[in-house]
């Protein structure tokens, strides 16, 4: 049996997301990230347990599945459902969101990250071709290795497995909205991601047609005709 260091030792709070606290720690003598889904006081305990269990299990499964098919994600080192802790590979890369913001601040063109954007589109296509739906595709859930330009996907808490073009289109729509609402001047980036997605995905036409449908769905949309 493998003996394990007590992971609760020397944990350093790294980030607080919407539903989990992220600590830097180590396991098996390797640096790691601990993602702990903490108790949300506002939620009914039954509902909270249902959501936390489901999301943690789904996150671990999707990460493993992504790794198998070649989508860049952190490795899963260990899972502990009792304490709702997920031990993941530490990836020391900045967020795509911060990269875009710094380009915006310097009023630079998106040319600097062309390769990365293409890679993002390619990897989403790979995910979708293998029926992994991320569920929360935003620029805060994509890391970028500055040196290589490679992108990494994190936070699969809302992920699911589905072959429906509907679910894939909604996944893309969530990303589109995230980009256009937080980087209104850089909305071209989504078009670029989609171009790359179309190039690599095997079921492009169906998904993109569905995307057009999904876009019309928000309430109070202007309807012409």
């Amino acid at each position, binding site marked *: 049996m493998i003996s394990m260091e007590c992971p609760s030792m020397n944990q350093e709070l790294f980030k607080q997301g*919407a539903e989990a606290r992220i600590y830097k720690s180590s396991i098996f003598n390797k640096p790691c990230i601990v993602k702990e889904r903490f108790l*949300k006081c506002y939620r009914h305990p*039954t509902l909270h347990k249902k959501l936390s269990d489901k999301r943690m299990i789904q996150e671990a499964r999707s990460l493993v599945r992504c790794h198998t098919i070649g989508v860049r994600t952190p490795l899963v080192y260990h899972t502990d459902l009792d304490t709702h802790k997920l031990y993941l590979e530490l990836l020391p890369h900045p967020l795509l969101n911060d990269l875009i913001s710094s380009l915006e601040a310097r009023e630079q063109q998106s040319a600097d990250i062309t390769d990365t954007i293409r890679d993002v589109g390619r990897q989403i296509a790979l995910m979708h071709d293998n029926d992994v739906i991320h*569920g929360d595709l935003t620029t805060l859930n994509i890391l970028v290795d500055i040196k290589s330009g490679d992108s990494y996907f994190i936070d699969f808490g809302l992920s699911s497995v589905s072959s429906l073009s509907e679910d894939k289109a909604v996944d893309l729509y*969530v990303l589109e*909205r995230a980009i256009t*609402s937080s980087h*209104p001047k850089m909305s071209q980036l989504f078009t670029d991601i989609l171009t790359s997605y179309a190039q690599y995905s095997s079921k492009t036409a169906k998904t993109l047609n569905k995307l057009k449908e999904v876009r019309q769905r928000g309430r*109070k949309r202007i309807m012409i005709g």
Partner: protein
Amino acid sequence: MSIAIGFEGSANKLGIGIIRDGVILSNLRCTYITPPGHGFQPKFTAIHHRSEIIDLLQRSLKTAGVDPKDISCVCYTKGPGMGAPLVSVAVVARTLSQLWGKPLVGVNHCIAHIEMGRHVTGASDPTVLYVSGGNTQVIAYSNRKYRIFGETIDIAVGNCLDRFARVIKLSNDPSPGYNIEQLAKQGNRYLELPYSVKGMDVAFSGITSHIESVAVKAMESGEYTKADLCFSLQETIFAMLVEVTERAMAHTGSQEVLIVGGVGCNERLQDMMRQMCNERGAKLCATDERYCIDNGAMIAHTGLEMFKCGVTTELKDSWCTQRYRTDEVDILWRD
């Protein structure tokens, strides 16, 4: 010194408000209430507004102590909302504008809720949760637009509550949501319901049809009481709303939450949001029923802000629209 009068009638509330540079001089309201088990239909809501508006106008001017000649602009709700009620109120605003020789300002109803909420609570740059019978949106400001981060992809949260109130035959007086809130306080058995969050978007129609299908059976068998069902519904849908708001906050880095719209005066929703804010070291800004529920003062206040930036609506453009996105309006009065 500028005075504005605002007319609101996009749903079942008819409201007239008079504002002098941010100071509310009057804010009267008159609600069309239907019997238990019934919703409000556009045609009859419009008839209600038409029959009440002149009396409400006279009382508003009297309460405010304002002479029509002192008014700078006449503001009305251009949309979104129900067609017939919107039009019945716009007719009055248009007529008064010509009668008094004052410019007309068409106001977006959602923007008015946000601006009134900011004005009353003093929130500077909040993440906004706008929840009512017809709208459910998570909104944040950037670059002269209120941008929609998340919204419902089917029905509004208030619509979900209203429909459920009809199923269990709760009174619509003063509002179905208020009666669900009161009854939920006596409930404690939690019935698991579908929970539907997609990124920052939410969906309620699945919950509505699920609870409709199990409600009657659960009550007849005595396993769950009416109160338990109200409790379970509130706990589930409010948890969804708080979750998407928190997601938007994580996205924008904002430390303030403002809740507006009719469902926003629900104290359980406010409590849950406050707990979420406390966990993050953020601040909750909420208002009471005077400003949460549709009212005329919010239209007057926002119309006056627009008027001061030089926006007026020509007579030929003074139509109404059922569909009017929050992110369509240029916010000229903010940096």
